[in-house]
């Protein structure tokens, strides 16, 4: 690639990066700006709205509950979906399309329709079993299915699961060993992706909780917003920052291994070189 072409490409990448960055960061920046305003236009900047988060017991409780829901939903999703998808790929490829259809179905059903459908069941559970908010995780499991399915499907497609599992079986591995020592380590990025999407969906969920009379993070934010707009905006910014932090962690865990350098071409003793994802994204040239 010629030097001028490379510079053009870098400028193009940087432009796209700046535009996208602005698209995401400007609203968050303005939210932050709003949450730090004083009571009047001339008042000095204040972190009062942020400090108020910790003084709202209902809000703190809602944050804790939403995080619990996110963890339970993510674990439940993995326990339900991963073995099912592996089994379908290995033993029942003919039902692959059916499973895919079922998993993507929640995308096509409006949340309000789902709520109307599950409300009687939830009322029965609340009266006869438990009224804990954690039972929301059942319905959250359904709404995260489409996103998690896509992430896991991409991960499973990236490895030759049939050959790897057969190789492990022939070496004496039972199915549990195949799953935990062969399949899971080879799709860690996909698992993290699926979990992140589940966490993001659960932390941002409002409709189900509100209509089923539970108070999760988003419902609590809406209540706080009625009293103090600054605090509700501060919580929203904090939850977005939390999601970004998860994404950053993911990008470090999920760095791709270098695949192009093969044994014949490598000099003895050379190590594989892994470019951090962020560098390649912003156009730092390969050395």
């Amino acid at each position, binding site marked *: 690639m010629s030097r001028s072409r490379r510079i053009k490409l870098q400028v193009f990448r940087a432009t796209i990066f700046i535009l996208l960055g602005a698209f995401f960061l400007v609203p968050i920046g303005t939210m932050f700006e709003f949450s730090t305003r004083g009571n009047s236009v001339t008042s000095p900047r204040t972190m009062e709205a942020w400090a108020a988060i910790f003084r709202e017991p209902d809000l703190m409780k809602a944050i804790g509950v939403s995080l619990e829901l996110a963890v339970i939903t993510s674990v439940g999703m993995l326990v339900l979906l991963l073995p099912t998808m592996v089994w379908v790929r290995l033993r029942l490829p003919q039902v692959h399309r059916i499973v895919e259809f079922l998993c993507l179905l929640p995308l096509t059903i409006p949340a309000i329709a789902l709520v109307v459908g599950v409300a009687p069941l939830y009322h029965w559970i609340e009266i006869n079993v438990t009224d804990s908010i954690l039972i929301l995780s059942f319905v959250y499991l359904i709404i995260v299915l489409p996103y998690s399915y896509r992430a896991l499907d991409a991960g499973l497609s990236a*490895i*030759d699961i049939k*050959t*790897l599992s*057969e*190789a*492990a*079986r*022939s*070496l*004496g*591995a*039972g199915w549990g*060993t195949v799953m935990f*020592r*062969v399949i899971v*380590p*080879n799709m860690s990025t996909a698992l993290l992706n699926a979990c992140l999407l589940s966490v993001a969906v659960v932390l941002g969920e409002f409709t189900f909780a509100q209509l089923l009379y539970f108070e999760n993070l988003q419902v609590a934010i809406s209540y706080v917003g009625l009293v103090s707009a600054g605090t509700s905006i501060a919580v929203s910014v904090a939850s977005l920052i939390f999601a970004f932090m998860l994404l950053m962690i993911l990008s470090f865990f999920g760095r791709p*291994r*270098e*695949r192009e*350098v*093969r*044994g*014949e071409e*490598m000099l*003895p003793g050379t190590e*594989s070189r892994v470019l951090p994802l962020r560098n390649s994204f912003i156009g730092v040239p390969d050395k």
Partner: protein
Amino acid sequence: MMATAGAGVEVRLEDLRRSYAGVTALDGLSLTMAPGELVALLGPSGCGKTTAMRLVAGLEEANSGRVMFGGKDVTGLPANKRDVGMVFQAYSLFPHMTAQQNVAFGLSLHKVGAAEQKKRSGEMLELVGLSKYANRYAHQLSGGQQQRVALARALAIQPTVLLLDEPLSALDAKVRSRLRDEIRRVQLEVGTTTLFVTHDQEEALAIADRVGVMNAGRLEQLDSPVAIYSRPATPFVAEFVGLTNRIPGTVKFGMVEVRGTELPLVQHDTPTGPATALVRPEAVSLASEGDSVPGPLIGTVIAVAFLGATSRVTVDLGDIVVLAQLPTAEASAHPAGTRVRLAIRPDPVLIAREEKAPVEA
């Protein structure tokens, strides 16, 4: 040197049958492998050879029949209880492990201590000549190196039987030939009874003690490589293994008359009448003919393919084209365009089977 598996065991397949949705993949395969023997199953795609191997490995269940290792019936055992080592056609190293960790994986499942795992995996990598690459991941190894590590991994658990499922087919020709010899050397060294599946006849004939040629789920012939090539038991084997000329003739009095030359038959019960004789190119020789009158075995050389020590000469006899394989020095006397007289050595020949529509098994 490494600790070897010791003498192999006898492996016996008894009337194995397997079908998929009504399509027969394996139709009563019976085969006995002597301890330490390397048997290659050879055949076209869909002939059932891979199915046979998967049944031996326990990766699939037979509809009927038995698999015996050293006199013990293992038909009902799952793959992880069969004590087989397997090398696959596709690269099968675990990508998140180094070469050494891959080799040690099976040992850890067999409750071998950490120190012993390290020692034995090191020995195995040394056996396949990859000690220097012990800390490399699969993506840092070439295809040939990956298959060698896979071989070391399969042998590390000292399996009762070693199964090789077209392990060389994804490699380029040069690496394939080198690794083929490597596999044979290692197999002889460890003495494990080995089943090798391939569709490459050169590979099968070069590596195996015995070759089993399969067709449509059945074993057509199981014999030494020399016998398979020079004394094929069926027309399918004759046509599948090596090149064969199909020359029309007539069967009468237990012989087949081909363009004025009488050739003995392998199968003496061949019915009388028109038939197509299968003649190896090595059985055809050439002599200069000059401008002599046309005859049934006189034709024109249309191509000479240099193969190294030998050359393959293509001769147009007018109605058919015949191949002759000769020493290169001899073939060079008959460049393209020259008129030649063919002679067919009176080796016993087979008669071609009736043409049928190909059946995918």
